[in-house]
């Protein structure tokens, strides 16, 4: 403890993706002493992989668009389980957040009039996604990174927060380690903003990077803050399934927005067979109308390939299960026969280039094999909609780690706007909280010593479990038993297996020394992965219905009871985790009225 590197801040932000950087920029702008702590180098966070765009009803392409339409699309996409207030704030504030990025140097694609161009995406009634080709996430993260650097932001790169430290029931600090040296570093702080992203690395086929190990959800839960909606995991319908080098990697929805269609091995455009009643009024039921829609949105209904992600993922899953899938377990995504090579290369440059180089697959020449890939976590840390405050004083959460906005299913494009809208709000509120706090909370030396010893424990065993093997077994379990289609017996089996893995993880051993040792880093990340996996499986078992990103084979319909319930997870000071059913906040009448207008 005596020679421990120690820093003092008002606000620390854990995570340097879109939400973390936007939060930090805001907190610092409010005068709070702010730092960003991130596991990777600055600018490498998972936000760089976002392709399609930022959903915001700016009305640059369709002047009919406004926040109310965006709000309604978001709620319907989330099967009405969304926190209505978050969906409202998000739809209202997204346009300003996009324009703000432009002031900080982002260069979006333009309309003929020179305004920010907006593209079509699944579940959005109007072309609404501000974009830069198909590398919008890179543009966003670079813009925010450059803004933060120009404001003199303190950034601790390749630094991993191991645990939060509390004082009298509120946030007091965080113990972290430098990945390079393995040395510990203590942050004494008044407020912490979690912006750590998702949990995709608990599954075998995923579009998520190694960083997505559920750190924020786990930090929050073990500190005593609640999680909600953990059963809702989005499987993106179009991940590559072949070859193995690109397995799980995302094929942006823009491929479908720009004319790509899904076919089974019989060559049939099967999505027409999977149009749910709730979307029937606005979805084309024949190929001719669907094809006319790309040129004329007003007089035609949308192609069924652009239904919300959960619908498309389930449809693909059903086709493959019925024996109409490819030998590698996918279906075909075909844009090659429908658009010219020149068009595809211009509209989807990164997509073309990426698969050509990574896999020697030419998307302009032939259909390619795709299937669902674990993509996004709708659930996470429970927050106050206006301030992103968690149920623990001093703790805030924004972006994928937080829950509420997306309900049971997220629309494409709503994630980047989520990061900006709620990143900013979390930064504002955390700065205000920190500045209003009289005396700084205290960090007890004994707690630091305990956490340091806990983190070094894997080095004390000469032999033990291989952390990589445990991660693979967990990924197998979640893939096979807690995937797109769930059933009681498999969920119970998953809970038991995760429990066994938790026991075995206590005996994990690592070789080598503390300097940049990925085996050790994974050994510590396992705790988070196992915590969130257990939460997902337990919540999925409780929710006896199918809704959005949660489909139960044994309960295929939606249920009136569950339509008003959030599964809420709490861990008490003794380490006991309980799940309770809490009522969803009731939407005010003036917003309810928006859903009574005709759909078209």
């Amino acid at each position: 403890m005596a020679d421990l590197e120690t820093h003092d801040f008002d606000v620390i932000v854990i995570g340097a993706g879109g939400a973390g950087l936007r939060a930090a920029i805001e907190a610092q702008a409010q005068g709070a002493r702010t730092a960003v702590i991130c596991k990777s180098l600055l600018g490498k966070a998972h936000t760089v992989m976002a392709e399609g765009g930022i959903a915001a009803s700016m009305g640059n392409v369709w002047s009919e668009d406004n926040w109310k339409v965006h709000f309604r699309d978001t709620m319907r996409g989330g099967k009405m389980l969304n926190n209505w207030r978050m969906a409202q704030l998000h739809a209202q504030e997204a346009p300003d957040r996009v324009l703000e990025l432009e002031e900080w140097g982002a260069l979006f694609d333009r309309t003929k009039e020179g305004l920010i161009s907006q593209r079509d995406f699944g579940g959005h009634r109007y072309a609404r996604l501000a974009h830069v080709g198909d590398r919008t996430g890179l543009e966003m993260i670079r813009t925010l990174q450059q803004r933060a650097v120009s404001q003199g932001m303190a950034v601790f790169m390749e630094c991993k927060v191991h645990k939060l430290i509390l004082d009298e029931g509120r946030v007091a600090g965080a113990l972290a380690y430098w990945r390079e040296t393995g040395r510990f570093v203590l942050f004494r702080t008044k407020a912490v903003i979690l912006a750590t992203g998702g949990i995709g690395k608990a599954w075998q086929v995923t579009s998520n990077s190694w960083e997505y190990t559920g750190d924020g959800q786990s930090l929050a839960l073990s500190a005593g803050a609640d999680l909600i909606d953990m059963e809702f995991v989005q499987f993106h319908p179009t991940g590559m399934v072949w070859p193995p080098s690109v397995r799980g990697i995302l094929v942006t929805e823009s491929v479908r927005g720009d004319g790509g269609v899904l076919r089974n091995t019989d060559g049939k455009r099967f999505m027409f067979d999977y149009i749910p009643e709730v979307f029937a009024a606005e979805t084309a039921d024949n190929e001719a109308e669907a094809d006319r829609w790309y040129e004329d949105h007003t007089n035609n209904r949308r192609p069924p390939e652009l239904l919300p992600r959960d619908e498309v993922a389930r449809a693909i899953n059903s086709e493959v299960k019925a024996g109409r899938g490819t030998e590698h377990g996918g279906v075909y995504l075909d844009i090659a026969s429908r658009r010219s090579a020149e068009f595809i290369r211009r509209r989807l440059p990164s997509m073309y280039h990426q698969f050509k180089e990574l896999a020697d697959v030419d998307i302009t020449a032939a259909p390619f094999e795709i299937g669902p890939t674990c993509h996004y976590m709708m659930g996470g840390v429970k927050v106050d909609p206006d301030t992103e405050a968690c149920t623990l004083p001093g703790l805030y959460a924004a972006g994928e780690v937080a829950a509420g906005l997306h309900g049971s299913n997220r629309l494409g494009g709503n994630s980047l706007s989520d990061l900006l809208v709620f990143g900013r709000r979390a930064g504002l509120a955390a700065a205000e909280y920190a500045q209003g706090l009289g005396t700084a909370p205290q960090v007890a030396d004994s707690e630091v010593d305990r956490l340091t010893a806990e983190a070094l424990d894997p080095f004390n065993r000469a032999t033990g479990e291989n952390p990589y093997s445990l991660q693979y077994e967990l990924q197998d379990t979640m893939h096979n038993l807690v995937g797109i289609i769930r059933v009681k017996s498999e969920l119970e089996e998953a809970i038991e297996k995760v429990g066994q893995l938790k026991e075995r993880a206590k005996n994990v051993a690592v070789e080598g020394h503390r300097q940049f040792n990925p085996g050790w880093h994974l050994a510590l990340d396992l705790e988070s992965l196992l915590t969130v996996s257990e939460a997902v499986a337990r919540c999925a078992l409780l929710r006896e219905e199918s809704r959005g990103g949660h489909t139960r084979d044994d309960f295929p319909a939606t249920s009136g009871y569950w339509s008003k319930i959030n599964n809420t997870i709490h861990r008490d000071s003794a380490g006991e985790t309980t799940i309770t059913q809490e009522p969803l906040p009731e939407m005010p009448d003036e917003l309810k009225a928006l859903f009574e207008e005709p759909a078209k």
Partner: protein
Amino acid sequence: MTDVSTDSPRSAAKGPDMVNMQVWRGDASGGDFRLYEVEYREGEVVLDVIHRIQATQANDLGVRWNCKAGKCGSCSAEINGLPRLMCMTRMSTFEPGQDITVAPMKTFPVMKDLVTDVSFNYEMAKRIPAFQPKPKDADGKRRMAQRDVERSQEFRKCIECFMCQNVCHVIRDHDDNKVHFAGPRFLMRIAELEMHPHDTADRIPLAREMGLSFCNITKCCTEVCPEHIHITDNALIPMKERMVDRYFDPITRLGRAIRRKR
């Protein structure tokens, strides 16, 4: 221990082949290549094989990576002597039976194994002042033509893999130049701002200060760019032309000399 290298669902492909990978292991105090005999499967890239070594033979092998999709620029290394992203180097591009060497980027100090200290780049980034926009239109919006934003958009495709920095001989062969020369990535960033239709700052003096004159347009940076950005032709040469016009054009210099006399 479970054998993670032969798990079935990950690899519906035909059986594995073996490859000899020579991976540099060590730290700032020194190191050398170590031989790993390891499986690889159809359709894999070098990073897949490095991960297999890490999972089965060397849990503590240091390597940076994030997206494994050519989008984040984390897994830069020198593969058979050539700067490459490990995630974008397909195993099928090597002759069967050929040894493959994987070494850290040479221009930056080694931290551990394949991980290098790239803080030089982050220090350079801090020296470039932010975008300074002109006022918006009366309706609060900005209007720019697509063709006008495309020049800077090309440079904003940069994923900051730092391989252009690694390969540029101005710093690769002359470490002491690092104090005078920001490298292609950051000279291109200056060009990006200079060519932004709405940036109002004068970026030419900074380009000079950050060492644009050191560049002798050998195009090594362009050749290794995984995003195929025309760094030399579209960023560095136009900036050099603007700099020459400003500082070395005889008529401009004469004009300046006259102004000074007043």
